[in-house]
């Protein structure tokens, strides 16, 4: 096997082990929360996780999508989960994360060992067609766990107004009453304020990290980014995650200043789209044989990253409310600023129109200096795949070569590795790239 060589220096990320440890602690803390008298709750990766933090420092979440992805990474366990869901009567074309998650409950097996730790309450939001339903089923499977869901599907960021914010904030206030009644705990607004500020730090700093990937050579590749962005999908409002991202930003900035590349033979830059097939991330390493680096995607940038367009028309990290000197001094102001911030989330925009997604993707393609795009027609996620064929046409019209491959983020039965590699070979040929090594 030939060595991976190139004109750029490379080195491992120093904070890599720390990222792994934070993730490991997260799943362990959730499982063991009851041992120390703490609480467990479950909800989606987009739920307003800062709000339950007002119940105390011993309240631990598990977010469903990254948990479903963790199941998918373990192919044998995933298959058993999927089959358990299907046996229970849930259709095979539903969200693959959801089916893995339900299967894990049905099998009563936690992906990180032991029985599935039953949450004390469910705290969800709803924008994707699966979201609230997901936890309605979880509640049923777990014999009636209290469930609260916040509807956030109020339209794109261009149409945000006071009524829409009020609609969501009202649900949040009611939700806090639900939390107090359900847990019997008194809600602490100071903890809420601290948590939302951490949320702003996490989401803004992750975007800052992604911005650094505009550099040639890219300091990060997307496969590595998946292991880093995941922390934001676990608990954006946690101080640990916010602090970690600031540490990560410093390290990646240093890589940029020293010209450290993720892919030493980088000569071609692409982006992907939607969740990858989690059991087959070697696809991204395969690209490197051609000197091709996936610098990220709207998905890995915008699922948790907070972005805005600056005066020059560039897509840049969103300045935090603290930097903008916004007042956050009580429950209501915290919830309002939190809501307004989240309604700008890039990955929420394209639920309203594929054109909004195309616009963001073309912006990334231009500013991150891309040579091509690889679109995953992801059968496992209706929400993020909706309109993807429209995005393809828009990208082609904008002059970017596009390759598509079909698959499923969480159901390996719908992904064909060999044919996907064959397709990549053909795409690399169209980009006039040959393998540097086997």
């Amino acid at each position: 096997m030939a060595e991976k060589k190139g004109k750029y220096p490379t080195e491992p990320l120093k904070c890599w082990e720390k990222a792994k440890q934070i993730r490991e602690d997260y799943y362990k803390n959730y499982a063991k929360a009851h041992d120390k008298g703490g609480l467990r709750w479950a909800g989606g990766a987009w739920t307003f996780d800062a709000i339950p933090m007002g119940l105390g420092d011993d309240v631990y979440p598990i977010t469903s999508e990254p948990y479903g992805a963790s199941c998918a990474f373990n192919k044998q366990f995933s298959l058993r989960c999927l089959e358990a869901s299907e046996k229970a009567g849930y259709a095979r074309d539903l969200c693959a994360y959801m089916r893995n998650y339900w299967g894990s409950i049905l099998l009563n097996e936690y992906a990180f060992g032991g029985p599935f730790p039953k949450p004390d309450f469910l705290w969800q939001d709803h924008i994707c067609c699966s979201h609230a339903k997901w936890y309605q089923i979880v509640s049923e499977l777990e014999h009636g766990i209290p469930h609260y869901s916040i509807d956030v599907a109020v339209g794109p960021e261009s149409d945000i107004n006071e009524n829409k914010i009020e609609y969501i904030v009202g649900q949040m206030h009611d939700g806090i009453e639900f939390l107090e009644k359900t847990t019997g705990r008194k809600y602490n607004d100071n903890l809420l304020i601290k948590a939302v500020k951490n949320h702003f730090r996490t989401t803004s700093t992750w975007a800052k990290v992604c911005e650094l990937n505009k550099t040639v050579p890219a300091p990060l590749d997307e496969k590595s980014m998946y292991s880093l962005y995941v922390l934001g999908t676990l608990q954006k409002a946690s101080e640990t995650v916010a602090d970690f991202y600031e540490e990560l930003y410093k390290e990646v900035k240093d890589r940029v200043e020293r010209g450290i590349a993720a892919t030493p033979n980088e000569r071609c830059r692409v982006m992907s789209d939607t969740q990858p097939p989690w059991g087959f991330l070697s696809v991204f390493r395969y690209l490197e044989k051609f000197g091709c680096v996936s610098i990220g995607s709207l998905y890995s940038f915008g699922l948790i990253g907070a972005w805005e367009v600056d005066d020059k028309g560039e897509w840049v990290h969103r300045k935090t409310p603290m930097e903008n000197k916004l007042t956050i001094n009580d429950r209501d102001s915290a919830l309002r600023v939190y809501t307004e911030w989240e309604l700008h989330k890039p990955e929420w925009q394209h639920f309203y129109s594929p054109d909004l997604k195309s616009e963001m993707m073309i912006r990334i393609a231009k500013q991150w200096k891309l040579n091509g795009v690889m679109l995953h027609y992801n059968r496992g996620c209706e929400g993020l795949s909706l309109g993807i064929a429209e995005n393809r046409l828009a990208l082609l019209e904008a002059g970017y070569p596009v390759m598509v491959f079909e698959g499923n983020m969480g159901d390996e039965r719908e992904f064909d590795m060999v044919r996907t590699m064959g397709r990549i070979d053909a795409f690399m040929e169209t980009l006039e790239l040959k393998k540097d090594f086997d």
Partner: protein
Amino acid sequence: MITAGIDMGAKTIKVVIMEDGKKVLSMAKDLGGTDTRATTEKIYADALKKASVKMEDITHVTSTGTGRAAAPYAKDNITEVGAAAKGVIFIYPSARTVIDVGAEEGKTLRCDATGKVIDFAVNEKCAAGAGSFMESMARALEVKLEELGPLALKSTNAIPMNAQCAVFAESEVVTLVHQKTPKQDIAKAIHDAIADRITSMVRKVGFEKDVVIIGGVAKNPAFVEAMKRNLEMDMIVANEPEFVGAIGAAIMAVENAGVK
């Protein structure tokens, strides 16, 4: 310079010997079987013999096709998409769109005058866009594969068939047989279904004249007719359509050998 192109297809293996990437000296093919290496060596020897050249006269061998990585003699390889474009442009310089339907895959591509691929699409896991689909349908109708196309051309009736999947299509055929539907009408429905599937791929990548059909299924006149009907345009059926990929590989071998 004498070069060779080996197309390790899903079902058949094709070898082409060329001089300077400009003149085809010989072509040979056979079913791949299970011992594809031995089969390829035999076909290769056959092609050399037909071209009256010796093995040591071959400067460079490039492979293509599904099994290209396992091709004996080949020093490098090119994807089926790239080989198809190169082969077609060599034979038909005016071609800009290629429809390639082989045993395992249906694919379509757009290319420029140099044979550079601009966009391409390949059918997914399902066999419903490939030659193996026709083989299973011929079995279901109890006719020989080469009779299926001419049989379909006798029909003037259009029967809708939801051939998203070869297995479901076969059960549809069985149902139609039980309903005493004339065989030629069923045969036409099969061709229309596969052509519809390929047409959607063609539309996906876009198409412009000239459109050239290659691959084994190009020999089927009913499929070609259905494609013409769907795209409302005439198209060129390549001479020796199964060998175009191997020709593309032999041309690529000239480039890969470092001499134009």
